[in-house]
């Protein structure tokens, strides 16, 4: 079982691939060495033949004849393997090359010629044929020098053997190293498996052994650990949200229950009962609004809403919402101003959802700004194509340490406990903005201890070409 695992590890497979690569590399190297050496040997052969010929040519015909004859008897045949003098009709005069090699011509460069002796295997030799003077009064002669290719053959043989001999230990060594490394990797993977099993059994605090994150496996474990940290954090958040929801639902439900109980306990007139029913309905509506908002946040966070994305005009949207909220701002004694929307601002997004963002931001701003204050909405495009949107008010503001929390699920500042609402408006806003790839920043509006006001600053990503093609595609 363990054996089988070993051969299945990534490291082992990698080792095998490595072995193949090494062998290929080695063979290539040997081939290259062989080609180089062979070329060198040929070069040397030519050189030797030519030098020898140059020496012999300078001698007198008699001396040359003597030399050729003697050489054929005494030369150890290290440099020249054959030498002969032929007449111009290719008949041998003296020497140890009995017949004129077929295809050989007079030339200053040595030539390769295949010799095919009857009853023996054909072999290749290098020949150099050049005209020399004959004895006085007779014709010119042809000096033929020959050198065998045995050096090149030997070279080929030696390289082949060397290659074969060196492959075996290298393969064995690489395999052993592979098994050793895989074994180690397998051991570490086993530890990780054990840690994961613990986590799956519910021990959410367990982490993978990541060491100092020095190699890729440890870095991977480190990434997984960070992911687990994030998940654990989210789990905690969800657990808290669960508590918050329970708490926020409990309050209106408890009120309904108490009211109904009191109405049922003692006889009352119809008017009282009607009022009780109306109030109970209102409280239940608040419960529903919390549940609806939660469902919507879940829906948006699941990211299923990108279907409604299209190119839209933020200016027109702002104008519409401002139109909707102007009367209410007026009745609250707040001035609602709009800036920078004289020309269209193109944005890629979901009109209905962005409608909700704007409405929530303006609604909040109006809610938390006392009479006499002002709320302003402005938007525009930066040079880099990013689109900004700001909703500014002169209201009670949000303390710095609460700014991050207000966009979380269900957060309500103690200051806002008395203001009706699901408490989820800003959570919805941030969920929708996340879906749009936009960021939300909350700042104080001004240096005023009592009424610092707030600036809700949204930055949308630039409309990219992709988005547009999706829109029309």
């Amino acid at each position, binding site marked *: 079982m363990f054996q089988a695992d070993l051969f299945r590890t990534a490291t082992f497979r990698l080792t095998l691939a490595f072995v193949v690569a090494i062998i290929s590399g080695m063979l290539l190297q040997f081939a290259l060495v062989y080609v180089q050496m062979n070329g060198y040997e040929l070069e040397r052969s030519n050189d030797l033949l030519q030098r020898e010929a140059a020496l012999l040519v300078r001698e007198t015909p008699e001396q040359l004849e003597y030399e050729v004859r003697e050489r054929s008897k005494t030369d150890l045949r290290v440099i020249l393997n054959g030498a002969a003098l032929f007449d111009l009709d290719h008949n041998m005069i003296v020497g140890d090359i009995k017949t004129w090699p077929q295809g050989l011509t007079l030339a200053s460069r040595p030539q390769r010629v295949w010799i095919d002796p009857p009853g023996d295997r054909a072999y290749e030799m290098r020949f150099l044929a050049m005209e020399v003077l004959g004895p006085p009064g007779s014709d010119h002669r042809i000096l033929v020098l020959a050198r065998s290719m045995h050096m090149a053959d030997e070279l080929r043989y030696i390289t082949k053997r060397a290659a074969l001999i060196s492959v075996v230990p290298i393969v064995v060594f690489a395999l052993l190293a592979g098994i050793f490394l895989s074994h180690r990797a397998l051991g570490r993977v086993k530890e990780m498996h054990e840690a994961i099993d613990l986590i799956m059994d519910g021990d959410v605090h367990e982490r993978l052994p990541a060491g100092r994150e020095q190699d890729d496996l440890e870095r991977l474990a480190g990434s997984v650990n960070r992911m687990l940290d994030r998940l654990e954090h989210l789990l905690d958040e969800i657990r808290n949200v669960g508590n918050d929801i329970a708490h926020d639902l409990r309050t209106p439900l408890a009120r309904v229950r108490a009211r109904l109980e009191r109405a049922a306990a003692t006889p009352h007139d119809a008017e009282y009962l009607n009022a009780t029913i109306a109030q109970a*309905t209102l409280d239940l509506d608040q419960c529903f609004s919390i549940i609806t908002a939660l469902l919507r946040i879940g*829906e948006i966070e699941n990211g299923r809403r990108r279907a409604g994305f299209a190119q839209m005009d933020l200016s027109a949207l702002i104008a519409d919402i401002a*139109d*909707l909220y102007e009367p209410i701002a007026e009745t609250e004694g707040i001035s609602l101003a709009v800036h920078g929307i004289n020309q269209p601002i193109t944005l890629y997004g979901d009109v209905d959802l962005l*409608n909700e963002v704007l409405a929530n931001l303006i*609604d909040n701003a109006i809610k938390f700004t006392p009479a006499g204050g002002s709320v302003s909405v402005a938007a525009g495009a930066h040079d880099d194509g990013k689109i900004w949107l700001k909703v500014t008010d002169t209201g009670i503001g949000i303390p710095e340490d609460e700014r991050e929390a207000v966009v979380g699920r269900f957060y309500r500042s103690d200051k806002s406990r008395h203001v*009706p609402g699901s408490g989820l408006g800003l959570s919805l806003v941030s969920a929708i903005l996340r879906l749009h790839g936009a960021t939300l920043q909350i700042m104080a509006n001004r240096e005023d201890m009592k009424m610092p006001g707030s600036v809700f600053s949204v930055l949308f990503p630039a409309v990219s070409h992709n988005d547009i093609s999706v829109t029309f595609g």
Partner: protein
Amino acid sequence: MTPAHEHGAARPTDPIARILLIEDDASIAAEVVDELKTRGYDVRHENTGRKGLDEGRSRKYDLMIVDRMLPELDGLSVIEALREQNITVPVLVLSALSAVDDRVSGLKAGGDDYLTKPFAMEELAARLEALMRRPNDSRATMIHVGPLSMDLIERRVTRDGRDVELLPREFRLLEYMMRRPGTVLTRTMLLEDVWNYRFIPQTNLVDVHIGKLRRKVDGPGEAPLIHSIRGAGFSLRVPG
């Protein structure tokens, strides 16, 4: 003492309108049937998509209420099947899903309006009524309701000859109301149809708008035309 008796004037026109409810949740169905009967409708209830479709094909109904999630055959398929047979009865789709996409697909399938559970009975009743009383011919360039006259080309409104100066948004709101005189219009309907809103804001937005409009339309000493209907919404109604 149900609220229904408070505004009997909104009762459907004779003869008694027949409504088919296709809903598998027994308790919601019972509530709806009760409520609609109290309001004087003739209601029939089926609890599966298959039975509902058969019933809808076999008899003529003035209106249908179809739940989206139904056993055997889902609500959208029921509506599509009816529309394929050229049965043009107005359909109100009910759904536990709030997604806007969902609403769109409901309307695309041939539904005429869409209501998310949980809903107030008043909301349901108002929407049914609005569905059965189709708005006035929208090609007309003049709309008249009692003493009110609206000129859609000149963008002018007069009451008994008195000019009523309206902002564009007020004009749109009044136009919507004048096309549906006598009908109860809920806050949600107004937000959805006049302002194209797909969600319900927390504040009393609509009330403020209606308040402003009312002050302009119903001058001092004049009989009120814009009425608030407690627990339901608003209605433009000519007295008498």
